[in-house]
């Protein structure tokens, strides 16, 4: 039943810029099981978007995947030809970008942008494709789809645009949806609607989804499992409940206390001290150690491995079993 859909092993994606090599993703391991929602959480610059772009192998220049494996349905995507990849992009794995006003092409009509995707992966006539496109717009709850389809992106609201971006992503019923902060750029009132829509569609079409976000609050109700990234590496990975109540990594803990919507329940809103480190010359050892209140000397010297401390619960911290973190939501003791 818990069949693995995607497994990333030791992924490294670097950007060769004038300032030096930016190690945006530096040894990331992730698993996604068929039909589940995985929350990929971290601050901006933690490498979550670059990880997602790497899965599709569309990292923009000067970024390059240096090493690692991306196993999708038992095949390594990094070994596939560009042509074979085109059969996977959009058809097997689809991507929803953060900002619909930049991810939809401003000079093409909605019809144009939906049709080309449908026709790229399905052997049907243009007329059928148009009917299908209108069907899709109905699916994502766009009013007057047969009128709106002839509009240009700038004629629609932000929420509408994101619905269209979603329609485009699910046009060929992919097995995996990569949603990169799909609600961050929307009004608060629209955010919940879009999340609900995505969750419904995911269930209806039986897709798996990686939901990328910086906000623990967003994944709390949606994700089955959560993987926390920090400075290009995985800190902790477990099912949602474990992350929220039995987190073992100090960074996960810090993230939880920094979420306003969660803090409201506990009046413990805290700001994580310091900034995300520079990824050209990252800190030695555990990358979180300069900001970590539990850091010991070992943390500054060695990089902690991601270790499975309980079935399905992995942590990359030397002190995971020594220190006793209290969840801001009450913690393991009260649960």
């Amino acid at each position, binding site marked *: 039943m818990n069949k693995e859909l995607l497994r990333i092993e030791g992924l490294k994606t670097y*950007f*060769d*810029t*004038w*300032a*030096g090599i*930016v190690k*945006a993703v530096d040894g990331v391991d992730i698993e996604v099981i068929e039909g589940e929602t995985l929350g990929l959480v971290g601050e*901006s*610059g933690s490498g979550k*978007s*670059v990880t997602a*772009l790497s899965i599709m192998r569309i990292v*923009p*220049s*000067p*970024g390059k995947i240096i090493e690692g494996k991306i196993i999708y349905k038992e095949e390594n995507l990094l070994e596939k030809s560009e042509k074979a990849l085109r059969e996977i992009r959009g058809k097997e794995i689809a991507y929803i970008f953060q900002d619909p006003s930049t991810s939809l092409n401003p000079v093409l009509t909605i019809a144009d942008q939906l049709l080309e995707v449908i026709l790229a992966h399905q052997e049907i006539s243009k007329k059928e494709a148009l009917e299908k496109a209108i069907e899709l717009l109905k699916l994502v709850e766009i009013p007057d789809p047969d009128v709106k389809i002839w509009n240009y992106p700038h004629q629609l609201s932000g929420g509408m645009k994101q619905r269209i971006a979603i329609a485009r992503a699910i046009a060929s019923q992919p097995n995996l949806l990569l949603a990169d902060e799909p609600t961050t750029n929307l009004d608060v009132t629209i955010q919940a609607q879009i999340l609900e829509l995505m969750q419904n569609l995911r269930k209806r079409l039986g897709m798996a989804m990686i939901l990328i976000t910086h906000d623990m609050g967003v994944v709390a109700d949606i994700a089955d499992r959560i993987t926390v990234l920090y400075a290009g590496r995985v800190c902790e990975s477990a099912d949602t409940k474990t992350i929220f109540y039995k987190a073992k990594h100090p960074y996960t803990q810090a993230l939880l206390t920094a979420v306003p919507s969660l803090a409201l329940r506990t009046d413990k809103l805290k700001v994580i001290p310091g*900034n*995300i*480190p*520079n*990824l*050209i*010359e990252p800190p030695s050892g555990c990358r979180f150690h300069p900001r970590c209140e539990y850091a010991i000397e070992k943390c500054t010297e060695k990089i902690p491995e991601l270790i499975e401390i309980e079935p399905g619960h992995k942590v990359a911290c030397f002190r995971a079993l020594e220190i006793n973190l209290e969840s801001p939501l009450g913690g393991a003791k009260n649960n």
Partner: protein
Amino acid sequence: MQKILRELIQEKNKTKGASQWNIAWRRFKKNKTALAGFFIIGIIIFMAAFDSLIAPYGPNTIPGFYSGETRAPPSSKYLFGTDYVGHDVFSQVVYGASSALFVGFAAALIVMLLATVVGVVAGFYGGIVDNILMRITEIFLVIPFLLILLVFLKVITALAPSGGGGLFMVTLMIGIFSWAANARIIRGEVLRVKEQEYIEAATALGATKTRIMIRHILPNVLHVIIVLTTLMIATAILVEAGISFLGFGDPNAITWGQQLQKASEAVKEAWWEGVFPGLFITLLVLGFTLLGNGLRDSLDPRLRE
């Protein structure tokens, strides 16, 4: 996506505590084409500064005339050959450097003064002021400016047959008719800067408009002005060469354009007469263009790969 990358890089700059100009300087030093441009300009400035030492013959001497060596090919005696009356082409090229540099710098100065005033005022005040200034700018943008330049220069020479206003007049005319495009770019930049928070803060704190313009807006568009000035020098040198080539330049000055004009009458017989002055125009223009592009790359806060 680009935003993420920019954040990653800015982080590094923050940690090193470098100022914007320091970063620019570091990038500039790494930019090979910009340094090449700098080098070319340096050589030609050197040539102009020590022209009488470098040139084997005086500016008004015609060594070839008396020895019957007019339009003589390049030799050890005349490095670049001689021209139609017997000038040493190499010496003339050396003396031409200061004219080209003068026109370039002076015209660019006039252009950038006009463009900055128009651009900053239009962008800052907006509304009707902006509207009027931009309509005038558009006129100067569309006007066939070489034609107007030629007419003005001809009329001025006709008024004073002894040689008109000379190189200065040519420079002034180029300056007056080339500011429009730059004014538009500067205005755009001012509009961008005006949106930023600290300007709003300064306004809220009751700073006067002139003060905001000079203390807050101008320093923030300075990098654009520097780049445009460098590129304008290149353009002005090209325009002066064209005017001189058509015979509308200052007849009393030694310019590369005029040398080419005389040479074009007999390219077949004496290629050296035109090829060398032309080469130097190209070199100098290239120098300023490379420098300008290099400056743009190093001063532009946007991400450079």
